[in-house]
């Protein structure tokens, strides 16, 4: 039973297709990442399932028999930017949110403590720094201890310590059995926090599945590995590697050479091949393919993605 099922969702802004026929389902008790570059349609997608934006075609369904408003009351959502009344205190702002939700008023002190804003609870929202505003928005999503949380770029504007805290909080919430849907353009974040990922680019769903599935399968690059190597003369090393059969791509990095090849080729074989050609390797490192590599494979390398 999916928490959220999205079917053939399309959203047009004039002639621009912000979302094009996107379908996927969010399994319960997962941290579901929606990954994509800026402007790829992540926020549009979340806006639609929150009834902020209207679909051009397609449909979505949250689990539960309630009305859409009734279901939203049970979901903690941070969409795009922290939205609060600038002239009201953090406390009053949370009180309004709790009253709209119809529950969670008793949690206000607790959630403010969770995000370290309790001491500043009576300060007006417009006196807050960007990071504090973001933390207040996260506090607001925790009101009423919801079973489902939706975060759009949750670590936006936070300092490194804040980022680590929020990532830890998200993992902790997941350990408590909650389902978390999280949009991000930060690969590292998705890799560290999420159990599942959907990659979208220019409104098109490129791939979806558990993080390990997405990393290891699909398409021509199925089950390939990444090998980092270096030698005294990297240029010469590169020329030699080009002669090796089976290797898919060779690229130069600042630290040496990166090679993508099928799993059937082992590090030993590469080492032996180079040694036979008269090159002694200074470094040989086999990496599981990272999400970043997969992401670039899936979306291409141009920055207009």
């Amino acid at each position, binding site marked *: 039973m999916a928490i959220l099922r999205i079917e053939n969702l399309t959203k047009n802004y004039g002639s621009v297709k912000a979302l094009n026929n996107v379908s996927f389902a969010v399994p319960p008790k997962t941290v579901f990442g929606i990954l994509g570059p800026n402007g790829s349609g992540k926020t549009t997608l979340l*806006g639609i399932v929150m009834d*902020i934006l*209207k679909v051009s075609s397609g449909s979505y369904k949250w689990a539960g028999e309630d009305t859409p*408003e009734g279901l*939203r009351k049970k979901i903690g959502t941070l969409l795009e930017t922290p*939205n*609060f009344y600038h002239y009201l205190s953090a406390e009053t702002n949370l009180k309004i949110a709790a*009253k*709209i939700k119809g529950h969670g008023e008793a949690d206000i002190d607790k959630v403010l403590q969770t995000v370290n804003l309790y001491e500043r609870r009576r300060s007006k929202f417009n006196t807050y720094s960007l990071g504090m505003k973001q933390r207040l928005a996260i506090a*607001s999503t925790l009101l009423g201890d919801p079973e489902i949380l939706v975060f759009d770029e949750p670590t936006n504007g936070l300092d490194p310590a804040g980022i680590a805290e929020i990532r830890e909080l998200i993992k902790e919430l997941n350990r408590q059995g909650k389902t978390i849907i999280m949009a991000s353009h930060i690969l590292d974040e998705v890799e560290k926090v999420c159990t599942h990922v959907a990659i979208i680019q220019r409104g098109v769903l490129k791939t979806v599945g558990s993080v390990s599935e997405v990393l290891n399968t699909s398409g021509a690059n199925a089950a390939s590995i990444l090998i980092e190597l270096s030698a005294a003369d990297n240029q010469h090393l590169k020329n030699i590697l080009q002669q090796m059969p089976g290797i898919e791509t060779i690229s130069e990095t600042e630290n040496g050479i990166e090679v993508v090849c099928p799993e059937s080729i082992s590090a030993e074989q590469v080492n032996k091949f180079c040694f036979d050609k008269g090159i002694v390797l200074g470094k040989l490192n086999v990496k599981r393919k990272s999400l970043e590599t997969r992401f670039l494979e899936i979306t291409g390398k141009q920055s207009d993605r």
Partner: protein
Amino acid sequence: MLQLFKIEWLKIRTYRTFWVLFAGFIIFFPVAFYLSAYKYMERMNDAKTMEENLLKALLDAPFVFPRAWHASAWMGGLFFVLIGMLFILLITNEVQYRTHRQNIIDGWSRMDFLKAKFSILIFFVIVSTLLIFIMGLVVGTVFSPSTAKMFDGVKYVGYFALMATLYLVLAFLVAILIKRTGLSIIIYFAIVCIIDNVLWLIFTLKESQVGYYMPLEAVDSLVPNPFKPKMLEKRTVADYTLVIAAVTYIAIYAWVIITYFRKTDLKT
């Protein structure tokens, strides 16, 4: 509805601009109304010359029962644009802070949002109408020689309530469609002060009565300037037809607001 109003009240209770504009209405209107009544009656009592006596007869003392209600409603209408402006501000603020999105994310339906704002509209209409009634009563009691037939003109308080509702529903419509605070207020004032009067002028040329049915003129004509001599009044259409026109306008504006807001993307 009451629950929605309580949440709206939480939003504005400590909002300084709200209190400035609201107090502007509930303080300035009574003070201005009482002072003009006081000055006017003072001059009337001093009137010695023929001309002034004639004037007195013509005007038929607007601050005396039963006409005090009419004068209170008319003058209240002049100050009521402050409330119109305030109402626009309370709606466009939500767009500016993106809280209209957050309210819905947190679990209001689109209709809940409109109903919450409508509850504020009702609040403004009730408070201002009460104030009009009280000031009519106070000024009438202070300056009238007798209290016979004192409630004859009390229908003007009802006309004021209708006028206030129409002005605020129009403000609601402008704010929902335009979204930007400054532009909304400018357009609202342009409609109230210029466009509606120009329409009235055009449609009352050649003795036509159509002009009295223009969107705001319908309610403005129900409460005409009490200082304008009756012989200059050219309106022949009955009050009740204007009431019907005003109610129709309110219904149309409300329909447009609801239809638009339920289907639109909530952007800033």
